């Protein structure tokens, strides 16, 4: 049974078609990595799923519910959380306040300020620091922690390891692993292919707004993915 | 990243003008010059109304330069209107011929801007807006303290009665038109010059602009003083056109409201928008002002309506649909045509 069903989804920026009739589905408790070159439309796709960008066509179904026109904040209540590109923390709020804002209307679940800080111990000394004064990596971790506070069933992370030091990447993936093990579904954009292929069960390659490859991660070689990046392979139906 | 080919500059060229912009800017210039003939062929009413319209245009163009290109959202440009008008009064009281006084008063307003710049330009955003407004109010109060300038009562410009009515109208018209064309020319020059992009960069992110080597201080200062000059000229011309001023009205914040209206309704950050906005504002006033409160309600509804349904202003309609540009002020990178096909195969 698939948790997320995307049918013929399109999204535009003005005249530019950033997402063109994409169709794919994500099963419950699956981990999907989305890869693709700069400007392929990954961010736009994720934002459309989370409701931060309007769909120009097609449908998005979440757990049997058509959410194509649902506003973003309601999708959060249904269990979709997005870690947006560029972190987008509330800059004047402290780290803890950032977490609490997200926790206020959260679905019930295991994540709260305490458990999130346990999962990302590097945040504990930063609790009372204003988000604007964090380093790039610290912001990235806070953004992921904040998304967890909503207790998502589907967590979408755009550029997971961007700006993270190697140890921080390990911590973050450990946290995501715990989430996966607790039964959540994950969609990640990750440019570190090795990571992506080892962590994700499925890989979705996006090229110029289209899904060109959608296969289980185990069946995939780096070469196949690289080819898909540059469009050398004819698109396969999922 | 693509590998660098040695002849990139040969492959690409920056275009600033096109046949379209060349024709339209020539036509605009011709139209501007032709307007000088109006007092010979048209009725007095037309001349006087065009003068009013040109003053509105000066105000709109200046406010747009400040806010739309420079990011300085001033709510206090009436300070210069007032200083321009009162400097004219002061100068005529000291035996300067009225029309010379108008020009000198504009310069005096620019000087006032020079004096105020160190205080105001340190402020940003809302603080700048409110700070500039308070400066205008302060000036109004100071002028009201000066009995020689009529105090709070207001004062008339008497020297112009020496001219026959039709001469006075024509002179005022010509000076207004000349100043308008001068300011438009300056703005176009600014936009074509590298200062144009630098100012817009400051508008978008002042720190980032500084980090790219832009001396933000002098540029902001220059623009601020230019706007002081323009608004000062508008104030002096308003006085020449209406003959009577009072501190509370010439320094009144409604002027800023009008400027915001004209610029935003026309299209902020474009050259053509404010001019269009000024024309619309003028026509509305001309046609409907007699309906009193109803007119003002309508004006308010139009302002809100534009903000809600056409936030980029009137000019965005033709500009978006027809890709219309009247002036050669942008930069466009184009691939040069007719490359030998051999080029492509080695990519």
């Amino acid at each position, binding site marked *: 049974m698939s948790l997320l069903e995307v049918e013929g989804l399109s999204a535009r920026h003005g005249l530019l078609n950033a997402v063109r009739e994409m169709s794919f589905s994500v099963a419950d408790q699956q981990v999907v990595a989305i890869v693709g070159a700069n400007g392929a439309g990954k961010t736009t796709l994720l934002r459309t799923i989370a409701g931060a960008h309007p769909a120009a066509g097609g449908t998005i179904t979440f757990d049997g519910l058509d959410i194509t026109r649902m506003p973003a904040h309601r999708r*959060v209540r249904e269990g979709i959380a997005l870690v947006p590109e560029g972190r987008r923390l509330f800059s004047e709020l402290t780290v803890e306040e950032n977490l609490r804002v997200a926790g206020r209307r959260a679905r019930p679940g295991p994540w709260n300020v305490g458990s999130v800080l346990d999962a990302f111990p590097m945040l504990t000394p930063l609790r009372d620091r204003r988000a604007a004064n964090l380093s790039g990596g610290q912001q990235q971790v806070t953004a992921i922690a904040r998304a967890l506070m909503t207790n998502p069933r589907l967590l979408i992370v755009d550029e997971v390891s961007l700006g993270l030091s190697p140890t921080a990447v390990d911590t973050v993936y450990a946290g995501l692993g715990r989430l996966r093990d607790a039964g959540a579904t994950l969609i990640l954009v990750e440019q570190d292919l090795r990571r992506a292929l080892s962590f994700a069960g499925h890989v979705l390659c996006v090229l110029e707004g289209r899904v060109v490859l959608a296969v289980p991660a185990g069946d995939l070689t780096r070469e196949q993915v690289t080819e898909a990046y540059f469009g050398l392979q004819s698109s396969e139906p999922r | 990243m693509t590998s660098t080919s040695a002849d990139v500059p040969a492959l690409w060229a920056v275009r600033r003008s096109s046949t379209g912009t060349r024709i339209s800017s020539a036509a605009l210039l011709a139209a501007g010059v032709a307007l000088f003939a109006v007092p010979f062929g048209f009725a007095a009413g037309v001349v006087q109304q065009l003068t009013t319209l040109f003053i509105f245009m000066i105000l709109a163009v200046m406010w747009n330069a400040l*806010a739309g290109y420079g990011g300085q959202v001033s709510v206090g440009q009436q300070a210069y209107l007032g200083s321009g008008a009162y400097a004219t009064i002061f100068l005529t009281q000291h035996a300067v011929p009225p029309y010379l006084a108008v020009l000198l008063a504009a310069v005096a307003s620019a000087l006032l801007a020079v004096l105020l710049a160190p205080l105001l330009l340190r402020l940003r955003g809302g603080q700048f807006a409110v700070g500039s407004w308070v400066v205008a109010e302060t000036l109004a109060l100071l002028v009201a303290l000066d009995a020689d300038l009529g105090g709070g009562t207001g004062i008339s410009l008497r020297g112009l009665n020496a001219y026959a009515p039709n001469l006075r109208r024509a002179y005022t018209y010509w000076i207004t038109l000349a100043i308008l064309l001068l300011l438009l020319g300056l703005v176009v020059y600014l936009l074509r010059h590298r200062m144009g992009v630098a100012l817009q960069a400051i508008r978008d992110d002042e720190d980032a602009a500084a980090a790219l080597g832009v001396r933000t201080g002098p540029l902001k200062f220059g623009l601020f003083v230019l706007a002081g000059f323009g608004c000062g000229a508008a104030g002096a011309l308003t006085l020449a056109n209406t003959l009577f001023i009072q501190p509370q009205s010439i320094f009144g914040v409604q002027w800023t409201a009008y400027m915001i209206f004209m610029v935003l309704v026309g299209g902020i950050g474009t050259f053509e928008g404010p001019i269009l906005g000024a024309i619309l504002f003028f026509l509305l006033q001309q046609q409907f002002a007699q309906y009193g409160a109803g007119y003002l309600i309508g004006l308010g509804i139009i302002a809100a309506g534009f903000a*809600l349904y056409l936030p980029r202003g009137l000019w965005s309609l033709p500009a978006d649909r027809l890709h219309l540009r009247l002036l050669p002020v942008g930069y466009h990178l184009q691939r040069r045509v007719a490359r030998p096909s051999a080029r492509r195969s080695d990519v």
Partner: protein
Amino acid sequence: MNWINAVVQGLLLGGLYALFACGLSLLFGVMRIINLAHGDIAVLGAFLVWSITTRANVSPLLGLALALPVMLALGYALQYTVLARSLRGGTLTPLLVTFGLSIVIQNGLLQAYSPDVRSLGGSAGTLSTGSWHLTAQLSIPYLGVLTLATAVLMLGGLQLCLRHTGWGREMRATALDSDTAALVGVPASAVYARATAIAVGVATVAGTFLAVHSTFDPSSGPTQLIFAFEAVVIGGLGSLWGTLTGGIVLGVAQTIGATIDPQYSILAGHLDFLGILASPRGRSLITRSTT
């Protein structure tokens, strides 16, 4: 003695300015809207309170209590119908919208109520004219004390809520980045509507106090606006405690200026404001981020 009286009266006057500035500060802090219609909304509120007070022949405070729900609802409606859309157009669009709103309210009131001046002072009875006479030179008016107390309560209460409640955090978060707030489940437009409703409500309170303090007519709105803006800026944009301080600083500057010479009253307030902007210390005061 005169000076003490000046300071006391200035303090009380500052309460009125702070009250006026409160809604402005809130809208600016939360929605980054410079609301040019603020004064007119206050006058609209005053007209509503006046209508209720004279129709039902009740005290202005009761009239205010009855008018508040209506004005709060109006605030909600204002956000959903007008402001929400204008916010999408960048920072200047709301400026144009509120300018439009300002003249619509002003002239709408002119049509509905005629240009006659009105006041709530008469129906407020001794509240508007009574005072504690401490010495021959120093008397403390009931109204001033009530105004100041209301201002402290409202601004202080709102500030505490913004800082320490989940509700306030949501509001601040939405203020900083409404799109992202939606991504963590905060309905931005509802939060904005709440802020607008509160701002309109507080403006109504301010308008009512002004109406008891003095008279009002459809064109009275803009006159108090600049003082309110000054208070907001002196206090630091978006900080409500700061706004209270700003209002008081302004009020005291005006009364002290007037004691030197009446014509320096308003001028002293403006010069004080500009002086604060110019002084390095003052600037660090106002640029300090206070939320």
